């Protein structure tokens, strides 16, 4: 290709990008094993094919966040005001947040009046199926209150850790609140871990939105895509992306094992101690700082 003149090179580049777009569109709309085989052959043909496809694919994956706007179409009259109050948020998100804040009073009242409470002891593990078909797995030492009604779906994680697989209903988003923050599902599997003030949300599949809600302003909002981890405390909110293999570690408790990847021994001990009343203490400070990677096959819960 490098030996051709510039008009030819231009035409070839354009053709490659057009093919890449065609593959991306077909994969989005209409895909099967035959397509996959044919696509793999095309992709393996040259680096030019690969980079063109990767680039379009990366841009298209970024646009997945736009789907977060789906359930909340802005009301033309209401957006201007919200925009003035929170200059950092653009119209649609600002108006959506307003809807949720208004709705939250009702949710709170409902949780107080007819919420159901589920809990596990230290070392415990429980899966519950909710009235709307969603399921929640509670990890060790967890308290969760849930209120499902035809109009609202809400849960409060009082403490501990829970893995949510939410049955998506665009008209009734599932709202999880924990440590003063809220997670709104947008069709989703996610992990929430909370202690007194801090919230950690790990998105495994789908889309979710996290809003912090302390007294400080401005309110922080983040829309998560799979692999995103949000850690929110009363002072801050940070978003990072994790590779899938790390998510496997964070979800390992669901299989009854703990997986550590380059974790300091002291941190690993702290993690074990979440599951046991008899606490592990690492006496040697040098050993405590050493990093280990372990994937035991025995469930820590067996020492229960």
């Amino acid at each position, binding site marked *: *290709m*490098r030996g051709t*003149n*510039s008009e030819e*090179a*231009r035409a*070839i*580049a*354009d053709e*490659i*990008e*057009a093919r890449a*777009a*065609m593959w*991306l*569109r077909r994969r*989005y*709309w*209409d895909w099967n094993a035959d397509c996959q085989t044919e696509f793999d052959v095309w992709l393996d043909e*040259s*680096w*030019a094919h*690969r*980079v*063109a496809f*990767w*680039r*379009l694919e*990366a*841009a*298209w994956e*970024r*646009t*997945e*966040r*736009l*789907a*977060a*706007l*789906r359930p909340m179409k802005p009301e033309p009259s209401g957006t201007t005001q919200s925009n003035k109050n929170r*200059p*950092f*948020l*653009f119209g*649609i*998100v600002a108006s959506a947040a307003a809807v949720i804040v208004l709705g939250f009073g009702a949710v709170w009242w409902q949780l107080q009046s007819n919420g159901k409470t589920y809990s596990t002891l230290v070392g415990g593990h429980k899966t519950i199926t909710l009235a709307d078909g969603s399921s929640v797995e509670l990890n060790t030492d967890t308290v969760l209150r849930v209120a499902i009604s035809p109009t609202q779906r809400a849960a409060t994680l009082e403490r501990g850790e829970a893995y949510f697989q939410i049955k998506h209903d665009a008209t009734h988003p599932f709202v999880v609140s924990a440590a003063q923050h809220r997670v709104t599902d947008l069709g989703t599997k996610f992990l929430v871990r909370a202690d007194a003030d801090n919230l950690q949300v790990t998105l495994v599949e789908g889309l979710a939105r996290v809003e912090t809600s302390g007294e400080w302003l401005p309110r*922080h*909002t*983040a*829309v998560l895509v799979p692999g995103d981890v949000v850690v929110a405390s009363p002072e801050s*909110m*940070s*978003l*990072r992306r994790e*590779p899938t293999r790390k998510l496997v570690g964070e979800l390992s408790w669901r299989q009854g094992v703990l997986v550590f990847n380059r974790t300091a021994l002291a941190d690993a001990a702290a993690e074990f101690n979440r599951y046991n009343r008899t606490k592990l203490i690492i006496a040697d400070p040098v050993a405590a700082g050493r990093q280990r990677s372990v994937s035991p096959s025995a469930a820590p819960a067996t020492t229960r």
Partner: protein
Amino acid sequence: MADTPEIDREGERPHHQGADMTAPDVKAWFVREVLPMEAALMQFLHHNWRKSGDIADLRQDVYVRVCEAAQQKIPDPVKPFVFSIARNLLIDRLRREQVVPIEAVSDLDALGVAIDVPGPDRAVMARDELRRLQIALDRLPSRTREVVTMARIDGLTGREIAARLGISEPAVSQQLDTGMRALANLLYGEPADLRRGA
């Protein structure tokens, strides 16, 4: 300009990871490290190449060379590496086309390239990202935008969109392909001017 790319030190650059990268590794690295530089790269190419029709092809060639090299060794730091490849590519092209004397590129190194350094506040970045996506969407031609919105936000199939818009299915596909290509240009190739624009 603390971050000006150092261009002429190919052999001295530190590299980590001696092992060969697999295609998925190169892909993850390319999407994470190289694509975010596209706006700066496009600016560099536009400044240094007269025929704007060639830019998309040049960009693609830069990416190919970058990925081929990355397969052997992951370059670190990435930015000077990418710009040195871009510079060498332009020089090769000039030599081949013999249109402009080689001296014309002698000031390539002197050119400051505006690099968008991401700020530390991830929450603001996440908001910026949504805003940027919406700006990109708004800038698509209206028919293309309609099709992209129906496909991506409303989750409709090609057939459903064709029925709603009263156009043929191939026409819908054509619009979505156009939209995917335009979105990549808008999201990667254009400078992120949100902070100033907001």
